[in-house]
């Protein structure tokens, strides 16, 4: 019961944050809204028993990636978004498509709901840091190492791109 209440509270915060993200015209507000969404998602992860993912969500996403966003916003001194011409495709194809997507998602979830499924929550047998470590450094060792290469490449790419020309 407590889980359900907490879920609804943080789901509501999540959606409110996401809607605020869209509603705000200043990018920094959007970024902060996203941080709110991320924080609530971290709580939801905790509700699902994924403590490690929750902590990583905060440290990496909220603490590193979003800081980068905020930095860039500050650096470029991005002002309030200007209203330029409309994109007819975005309005008349994109938005109806998104509506359809939402409809389809709801429809399929309703279908799914009929086949009774168990509720889910934290599982004491799952989600300990050790187990994730075993997976990460055992079964997924190669992908893990590859991600480190990926990050190295991303760092170099970022440096090359953001550096001003030599001359």
């Amino acid at each position, binding site marked *: 019961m407590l889980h359900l209440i907490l879920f609804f509270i943080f789901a509501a915060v999540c*959606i409110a944050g*996401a809607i605020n993200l869209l509603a705000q015209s200043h990018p920094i507000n959007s970024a902060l809204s996203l941080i709110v969404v991320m924080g609530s998602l971290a709580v939801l992860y905790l509700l699902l028993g994924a403590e490690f993912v929750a902590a990583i969500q905060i440290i990496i996403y909220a603490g590193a990636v979003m800081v980068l966003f905020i930095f860039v916003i500050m650096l470029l001194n991005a002002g309030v978004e200007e209203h*330029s011409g409309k994109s007819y495709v975005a309005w008349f194809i994109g938005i109806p498509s*998104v509506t359809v997507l939402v409809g389809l998602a709801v429809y399929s979830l309703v279908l799914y709901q009929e086949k009774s499924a168990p509720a889910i929550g934290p599982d004491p047998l799952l989600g300990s840091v050790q187990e994730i470590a075993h997976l990460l450094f055992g079964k997924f060792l190669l992908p893990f190492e590859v991600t480190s290469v990926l990050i190295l490449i991303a760092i170099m790419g970022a440096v090359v791109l953001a550096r001003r020309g030599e001359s």
Partner: protein
Amino acid sequence: MVPLAYYLGLSAILFCLGVLGFLIKRNIITIFICIELMLNAVNLSFVAFSAYLKNLNAQVFVFFVMVVAAAEAAVGLAIIIAVFRTRETLNVDRVNLLKL
């Protein structure tokens, strides 16, 4: 205890909000933020399924998604800075040519 469908519904809503943001926002940074929102929505599905299937693989995938998101953010923001230097605007509607 919460039914899986709730999580998935929340995930779908967040994802669609991200797509919607992509469609209606004009600031390139905000659009980028919307991409992050979509990634987060997907992560929520992963974690929910992980709990549902009692399988930790999905959480490892979340980890990878985060790594990719971090790399993408670094490179993407560097690109945004480079674009801003040449165009002096962040409005995607004004950045619609491949050459200056």
